[in-house]
């Protein structure tokens, strides 16, 4: 769990850590990862390819439109909604 790895994860997850968190979280993560590594002693050959354990088959739905009745509540939760759009700072 080196500094570069932590930086990469923070960037992927869009999370910054405060200074105290920066000290705490990496060492805790390392501790957890070390613990989790006990899985290495488990032989998983013959346990499939890693597919979902109990999901069998999706049920497909008919092609029938439904209009959501309360778009106003949906959009009113947005801090930036105006003129019919959600807004963010300019994306290049």
């Amino acid at each position, binding site marked *: 769990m080196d500094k570069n790895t932590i930086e*990469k994860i923070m*960037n*992927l997850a*869009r999370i910054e850590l405060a200074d105290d968190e920066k000290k705490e979280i990496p060492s805790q993560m390392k501790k957890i990862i070390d613990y989790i590594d006990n899985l290495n002693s488990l032989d998983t050959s013959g346990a499939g390819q890693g*597919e*979902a354990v109990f*999901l*069998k*088959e*999706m049920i*497909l*739905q*008919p*092609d*029938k*439109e*439904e*209009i*959501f009745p309360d*778009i106003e509540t*949906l*959009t009113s939760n947005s801090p930036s909604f105006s*003129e*019919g*759009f*959600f*807004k*963010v*700072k*300019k*994306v*290049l």
Partner: protein
Amino acid sequence: MKNSKYKITIGLEVHVHLKTRTKLFCRCPNLYGSDPNTLICPVCTGQPGTLPVAGRESVRQAVSAALALNCNINEYSIFERKQYFYPDLPKNYQISQYKLPLAENGYIKAGGVKIKIDRVHMEEDAGKLVHREKETLVDYNRGGAPLIEIVSAPEITSPPQAAEYLKKLRQILIYASVSDCDMEKGSMRCDANLSLNLKESSRLGVKTEVKNMNSFKAVENALAYEARRQESLLLEGKNIVQETRLWDEDKNKTAGMRTKEEAHDYRYFPDPDLPPLIVAEAFVEDIRESLPELPAAKMERYIKEMGLEEYDASVLCQERDGADFFESAYEKLEDKKEGIKKLSSWISTELKGKMNAAGLDFKSLEMGPSFLAELVNLIQNGKISGKMAKDIFEIIWTEKRSPAEIVEEKGLSQISGEDKIERLCRKAIEENPALTDKYLSGKEGTIGPLVGFVMKESRGQANPSMVNKKLREILNEKK
């Protein structure tokens, strides 16, 4: 790139918007052109607690498309989450297929070459971003719409071939009724990977990805530009940087994206909200049987069974609606064997000319195929001349009335009664002794003016070849 020491390798990733009533994972209408953020619900705006539920019609159309592209359908496929933060992606992941796609190993024939299709998979569309000076506006109407992504093998060898591939792909998918494949509206989008390598080498070079091409022409131009750009870099001994480049239509060049190119790590994993998609064999066979005849098969039938020339057949097969028009007119021909050539040329030249001028397509065309068949029938059995047919066609086009009706009403029927023609011919001979004498003395060219006389007398309604024949008969008797 002629005489270059490099060869071009292109792979295309094409996204096609399916024509379902609802979005892929919710029941919002799948429509284009509505007011922003009016076709949204908790699911397609990624509200907490919402779950994706796939629509049967999206799957059906995706399977149709994959079959039309000669793919194998995987009975078992998986939806995964492709994760990256972007404002057009309401969940900040896109539900797509990765390891186990819906279909694999297809091909299409473009310009006489078979181009392999690696895979066809299903995914949800992102929302639309509108960029203003300082802010970006997000509209989720399109977010969650059903897409298929068609990934070609890197086997395309030139920009024109890439355009040819796209045209063929578009033609097939429109035939299969799964999309209108309109690049301008964004219902068909194309990204391309292009690399160069030395002709004698089999190792592919470093590729760049080219995006933002909004027409077939743009694809061809962008790729041609990109190939030249890479070539000149290589010739200067420089390296190609693996990057995404945007095509700028106005400046006619590609430019690297200015954003910091982060190493993408999409962290795909199977979406735990979606069980495997099982496409049963019976479902696939059902779709296979209901698939319409596709352009390649249709062309072959037109050539082999109907006896059309390859060029004519390909023009007629260009669009499914046009081919349908042709076929229903063909059914009504009285003499199919003789009339087909004429019918084909009427559709490809006269009718298409009118349609282009009026900005119509076969869907919006009001004139029925039976009128054109009738018109050809009238020509074939000698009731009207080709010249008359053109006049009548004008009337059909503007008044949408049956040709027989027009002919009757205007008394335009071609005079082909032997008696009447003979009478007119004798009159011509009697009233033009000078011409007659010249003919009899061996100057057979004078037959022309005599035919002209008869035609004038009949107000153009006589069949000129019959007149010609009759005049000769009478004059030869006098020899």
